[in-house]
């Protein structure tokens, strides 16, 4: 049965909202012919917009969901590491966040808001874990149940032979300094600062992610910045 016949079988009952948009013209001749099943499997995977992936995942399309996981895992792990100071805990938090996201996706009203939403799930997961940690620590009066992990060094010197060992050492000292001072900030402040300065989230997006007014976010980031600058100066 050709596609031309299909269009005239009388089965057309167009009632969609786009009815007015559909005119009688035939598809242009340069439209590809319907592909066979064999062609379909060999075709390279298409790259879809995020809103499309989100809508499909909402309908239970696991391939679309996998693409979303792949495009956010690195960002969420970086957030988790800076919040929790532990790579293993960050892995667990990211895994829990994506599973929760899959379960709650059908209730996400605006697919355009996925980025803010997934950051919200991850940030709240981290803040909850930190609350549990604090409770555990005060109840057992033991020392910290985790140790601040050492900073992975970016290959600063690689590719730029002009950087002297002194500069490289200074750079790594600055990283250690920021890492150490950041870990001393209250979790709520740290979350706001990390989301803004390391993930480029806007104040309103952070307000949505954490569930506080924009003015609170602005205040926390300003205080965090002041504490970090002071702390780094003192550390040096």
């Amino acid at each position: 049965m050709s596609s031309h016949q299909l269009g005239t079988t009388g089965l057309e009952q167009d009632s969609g909202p786009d009815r007015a948009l559909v005119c009688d013209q035939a598809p242009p001749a340069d439209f590809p012919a319907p592909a066979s099943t064999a062609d379909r499997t060999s075709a390279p995977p298409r790259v879809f917009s995020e809103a499309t992936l989100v809508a499909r995942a909402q309908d239970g399309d696991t391939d679309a969901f996998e693409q979303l996981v792949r495009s956010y895992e690195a960002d969420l792990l970086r957030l988790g590491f800076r919040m929790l100071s532990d790579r293993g805990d960050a892995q667990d938090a990211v895994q829990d966040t994506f599973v929760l996201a899959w379960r709650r996706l059908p209730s996400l009203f605006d697919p355009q808001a996925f980025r803010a939403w997934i950051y919200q799930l991850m940030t709240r997961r981290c803040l909850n874990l930190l609350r549990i940690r604090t409770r555990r620590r005060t109840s057992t009066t033991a020392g910290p149940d985790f140790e601040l992990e050492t900073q992975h060094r970016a290959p600063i010197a690689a590719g730029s032979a002009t950087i002297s060992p002194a500069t490289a050492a200074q750079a790594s000292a600055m990283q250690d300094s920021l890492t150490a001072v950041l870990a001393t900030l209250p979790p709520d402040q740290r979350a706001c600062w990390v989301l803004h300065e390391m993930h480029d989230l806007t104040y309103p997006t952070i307000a949505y992610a954490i569930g506080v007014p924009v003015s609170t976010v602005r205040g926390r980031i300003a205080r965090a910045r002041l504490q970090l600058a002071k702390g780094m100066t003192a550390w040096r």
Partner: protein
Amino acid sequence: MALTGPTPTSLSRTDPNRMGCGRSIDDVWARIDLRPDPHEQTCPDCQAARHDLGDLAVATHLVIAADKADPALRLDSSALIGILEIARAEVRRGRRIPMEQPSPGPVRDELTVSEQTLANLIRRTSDEIDGLEARRCAVALSERDPADNSQQASESEAPAAPTEITVDLRIAVASTGAIPALTQLLRERVRTAVELEVGIAATTINITVEDIYDV
């Protein structure tokens, strides 16, 4: 030093963010990657703040670069597999749709297909068309005309009619796409694929263009 130094008077008592010169730490931070403006070139408060914040700005860039290059800050493949296994196990397959129209008489073993399978088929079919992206897709049994039913009941010996379904498909269209031609092609492809692969008649295919994307 504006932030830590022995001259606390350079910071306002009411707003720790506001310096004696009237500018705020936020103002300095916003300009930290730029050359100092004329005020900053002469103001001691701003110069001190720029110095302290400059270190923070450099350290921030370094830490971001280090984290992005850290191979341990990528999702474990076992974690990825775990996430996707849970997702697949929890797929909402939706109702089962009989592949033949229910007819009066003794109940037979019905061949059915899940809404999820039909939606997947429709999405895959849509993916073959450049210039549009299929988004949400719902399928449901079409409402039968009661007159049609009574007619069928009187011809109980007739072979079972194919199931008729209604498809509601939401799509995004490329900004360069011709919507009438694309939706017409999409309707034909979906109708053909559903008929060929599951033997069901997609009698109504409602297409909603909900978005335009740039290419």
